[in-house]
């Protein structure tokens, strides 16, 4: 479904060259929910922008259903971390969700249906005529999620979407993402710096090294498919997994080689 092959991104800032991403290769199958975690500053956002077609990689390629991504592909939606800056403040909630659909050229009745459904799915059916800035941060991010859902993407990219909301709201939104994923069968790539969040949400967790970034480890989360905040987080397996991820991240920060040594030591 989504193939990332040998992705490399070097920023040229005058005389200084910054290698944000060295060599990233991973694959998402259709309908998968995969989380990407890594130490702070490891180029997670750069990676996501390359996948979304918003940045051109220095080398390597991103394939969506076998077709190379050169610009933002039509079957992809992105939810950004900065919800306050990603919704159009001059459009009402409903219009924010509707605008990409209008751009797609969908008939009016269908758009109406999608907007209503998407807002209901995120629990904001009655906020349609409010402006985004009249809502709380968590609600604004729900609107951004509704906009992505209404777009009916094949792949949904989420860039640390809950980093700026409080812990309780975050827990609710995590469950919302799991619920929507189950309901829609969409493929989700979820980028986060929160280890618990990655293990709680994902079917797989990709652990990144620190910059210049490679994939340090791919971890399958063998927790039951039905997850809830109370029991899953108390599950011994959850604790074991999160400890493992934590160790890997700590090791990555110190620059230690990964146990599998995948992608490392090529130079």
């Amino acid at each position, binding site marked *: 479904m989504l193939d990332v092959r040998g992705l490399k991104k070097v920023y040229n800032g005058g005389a200084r060259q910054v290698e944000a991403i060295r060599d990233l290769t991973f694959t998402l199958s259709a309908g998968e929910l995969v989380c990407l975690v890594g130490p702070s500053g490891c180029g997670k956002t750069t990676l996501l*922008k390359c996948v*979304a*077609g*918003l940045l051109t990689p220095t080398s390597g390629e991103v394939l969506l259903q076998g077709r190379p991504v050169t*610009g*933002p592909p*039509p079957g*992809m*939606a*992105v939810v*950004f971390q*900065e919800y306050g*800056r*990603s919704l*159009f*403040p*001059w*459009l009402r909630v409903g219009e924010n969700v509707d*605008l*990409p659909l*209008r*751009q*797609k050229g969908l008939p009016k009745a269908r758009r109406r249906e999608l907007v209503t459904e998407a807002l209901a799915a995120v629990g904001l059916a009655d906020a349609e005529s409010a*402006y985004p*800035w*009249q809502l709380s941060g968590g609600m604004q991010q729900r609107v951004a999620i509704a*906009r992505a859902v209404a*777009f009916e993407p094949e792949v949904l990219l989420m860039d640390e979407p809950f980093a700026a909301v409080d812990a309780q709201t975050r827990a609710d939104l995590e469950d919302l993402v799991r619920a929507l994923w189950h309901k829609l069968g969409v493929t989700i790539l979820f980028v986060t710096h929160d280890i618990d969040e990655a293990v709680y949400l994902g079917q797989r967790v990709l652990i990144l090294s620190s910059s210049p970034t490679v994939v340090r480890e791919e971890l399958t989360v063998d927790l039951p498919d039905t997850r809830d905040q109370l029991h899953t987080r108390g599950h011994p397996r959850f604790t074991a997994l999160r400890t493992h991820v934590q160790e890997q991240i700590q090791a990555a920060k110190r620059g230690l080689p990964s146990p599998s040594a995948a992608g490392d030591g090529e130079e």
Partner: protein
Amino acid sequence: MTAIARKVAAALALPVVLFAVWWLATGSSENFYFPSLRVILSSFGEVWTGDRLVTDVLPSVLRLLCGYLAAVVIAVTAGVVIGSSPRIRAFAEPALEFLRAIPPPVLVPIIMLFAGIGDVMKIVVIVFGCVWPILLNTVEGVRAVDGVLLDTARSYGIGGVARLRHLVLRSASPQIFAGMRQALSLGIILMVISEMFAASNGLGFAIVQFQRSFAIPSMWSGILLLGILGFLLSLVFRLVESRALSWYHGLRRSQRS
């Protein structure tokens, strides 16, 4: 209802006081150059309610509106082009700053040379003065469009005309309106000045004529009319602005609280 009444009363209080002071201070004025307000008001009624409304006020207002609207269209178009590209901006900005620094009235004699002394000359003068504040503000506004919003629009395939209409212009609209507000008062000044230089009708022309023929109360009434005209135009402007920027004022309030 009482809240509205109180607002209106508050807004009118100072003008009423000022008029009262003017009325009392000039009540028994024998000074030829400073006639009493009573005389000015009665000449106001005579001068500005009849033919002159059509022969002087209307042409002035039409020139102002034509010049102003043309300036808005030109300045916003150019501002979007310049603001969208750092390269064009670096190229054009020094020249713009220079042109802006020229006081538009000094161009009246030059513009007269090629545009004559008709309506075209006056409209060109108004356009030339009004363009700068709108242009420079539009450039700033377009330049400052949020990067996350731009990425959002791109990832949802919002490009071309839709991007301009729903993103760039809306995002820059607070700055565009700030420029338009400055341009409006400039426009009124230039309207009068261009008519004082060379004209056969218009408010500026009429006021100079009254002054030259020593019709002092009429002259004062013309100045009063200019004040009222400016006030009404800014009232209309504010109505339009508060509708177009209601989201912006709401956003600002929500960020402050």
